[in-house]
């Protein structure tokens, strides 16, 4: 056992907590530089961890040397490391972006962002149901604070709605945990796995139902998506990016983890329903994105649609590893692309002084790099090659064909065409020459660092499509 002080696992949680707290002490609007240093460190830690896991398999860490059941165990397997990497890779360019975006005053953005990242990293490393509950709540609290950051009435209302949804769903989840503990006397995922049988007592069915519903609502799967567009569409651009790219993925990750881990035999019963809800989400989210007049709402509705793809993986999970790879690839590709797209939307709104699609006319000439980034992110969302989104869809189609479930293929390909519809709504408008409409907000000069951070994220989402082999190698490590 190596020196516990050198283990990257706890540091991934402590580091963001530290710079978040320091930023709070430093006062409103300060701490951006600190965050950059901390995030660079986190990215390094996540990479080290990834190498360790690929080389020597999953690894765990007993916090403080206590060990379960009273202490907390952290666990890093391939799936967790993939999500950790996504989190740090998205967060670092977002921090660069946010420093420029919040030039007028960041409020409490930096402390909240630090807490959010600490909570997310802790969530991905959790190895028991109760610790998952605590980290879920921490993620929600930080996220709600971020949504309310601007203090505009719409933002506060969206934040309050978001908070109540989060609290209710966490409550449902915790009830499930209580029932599971009552039946099995443990909440450790590893200990539970052999205990849960095909014919469990009623209380376990109830518990799985409550936990599942709670997590589904947090992931905003249709028909629980109602809270997402106002919360994500209304927040400040860097906040929307973090929420859409990372926060909704956290609950998806948990669903995947539970469905593959202790509750594998029970999850199969609901898999078909989840897949169908995912298909409906793709259609409904895309349809709304095709109709809305606001740029950021378009991007937010696109999140609803893209989350649907994640759930197409569930009916195909049982047979082989393809569907899991597809789900994780889609989570990563969408995370990067959506962070880029919200960042791009933020730049476009600053540069044109308008928040509607109609106001975008001629933007191609003013912020070409950002528009290019938007288009690259769009390629991922449309699932066109060689992007990460394409690989995700290819894997899904491959899995569906292997299992003779051809219907999903139609959904995947049709969803890509719908995505093309809403992505090109934006691009067409931006290429249109013509007198720009009068800005309704002051037009800001856009700093180059914002444009480049956006571009970097978008480029990463596309280049991910050339590195599928590494992801597969990572996922095959330490999976149940």
């Amino acid at each position, binding site marked *: 056992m190596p020196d516990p002080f050198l283990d990257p696992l706890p540091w991934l949680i402590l580091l963001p907590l530290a710079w978040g707290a320091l930023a709070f002490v430093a006062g409103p609007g300060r701490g951006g530089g600190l965050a950059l240093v901390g995030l660079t460190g986190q990215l390094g830690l996540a990479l080290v961890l990834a190498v360790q896991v690929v080389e020597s398999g999953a690894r765990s860490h007993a916090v403080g040397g206590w060990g379960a059941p009273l202490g907390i165990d952290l666990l890093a397997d391939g799936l967790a490391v993939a999500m950790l990497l996504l989190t740090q890779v998205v967060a670092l360019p977002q921090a660069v972006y946010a420093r420029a975006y919040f030039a007028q005053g960041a409020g409490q953005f930096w402390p909240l962002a630090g807490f959010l990242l600490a909570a997310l990293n802790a969530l991905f490393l959790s190895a028991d149901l109760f610790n998952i509950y605590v980290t879920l709540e921490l993620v929600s609290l930080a996220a709600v604070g971020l949504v309310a950051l601007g203090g505009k009435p719409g933002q506060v209302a969206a934040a309050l709605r978001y908070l109540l949804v989060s609290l209710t769903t966490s*409550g449902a989840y915790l009830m499930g945990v209580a029932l599971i*503990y009552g039946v099995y006397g443990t909440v450790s995922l590893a200990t539970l796995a052999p205990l849960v049988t095909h014919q469990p007592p009623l209380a376990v069915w109830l518990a799985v139902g409550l936990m599942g519903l709670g997590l589904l609502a947090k992931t905003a799967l249709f028909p629980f998506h109602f809270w997402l567009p106002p919360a994500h569409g209304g927040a400040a651009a860097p906040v929307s990016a973090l929420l859409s790219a990372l926060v909704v993925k956290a609950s998806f990750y948990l669903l995947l983890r539970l469905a593959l881990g202790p509750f594998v035999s029970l999850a199969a019963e609901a898999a078909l329903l989840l897949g169908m809800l995912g298909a409906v989400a793709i259609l409904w989210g895309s349809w709304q994105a095709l109709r809305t007049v606001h740029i950021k709402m378009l991007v937010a509705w696109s999140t609803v649609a893209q989350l649907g793809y994640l759930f197409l993986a569930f009916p195909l999970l049982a047979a082989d590893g393809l569907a899991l790879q597809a789900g994780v690839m889609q989570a990563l590709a969408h995370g990067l692309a959506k962070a880029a797209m919200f960042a791009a939307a933020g730049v476009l709104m600053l540069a044109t002084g308008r928040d509607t699609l109609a106001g975008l006319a001629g933007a191609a000439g003013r912020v070409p790099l950002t528009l290019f980034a938007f288009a690259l992110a769009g390629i991922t969302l449309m699932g066109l090659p060689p992007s990460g989104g394409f690989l995700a869809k290819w894997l899904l189609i491959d899995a569906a064909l292997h299992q003779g479930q051809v219907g999903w293929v139609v959904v995947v390909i049709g969803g890509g065409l719908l995505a093309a519809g809403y992505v090109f709504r934006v691009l067409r408008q931006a290429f249109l020459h013509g007198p720009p409409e009068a800005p309704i907000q002051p037009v800001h000069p856009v700093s180059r660092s914002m444009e480049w951070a956006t571009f970097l994220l978008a480029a990463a989402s596309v280049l991910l499509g050339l590195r599928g082999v590494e992801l597969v190698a990572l996922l095959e490590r330490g999976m149940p």
Partner: protein
Amino acid sequence: MTPGLIFALAGVGLFVLGLGGVILLAQSLRRILAFNLMGSGVFLVLVGLAQRDGNPDPVPQAMVLTGIVVAVAATALALALARQFGDREDA
């Protein structure tokens, strides 16, 4: 019927009441209170089901304590937001 089971059933009842409140009520303050009811229900279930062979089990006790801390923090945030929201409604 053991006392533990009675606690647990009462907890489920409180949870359902609270859940109904959060979904059906309109006013923010009532919904926040309803959420606290839900939380209390869950804690009762945890404590109630955890009495194995009459000996208290320390693990769920620790969980309930943690849960209470989380619930208090969440309630504080919800109240602050509701007030801010309410102030603007009034203005």
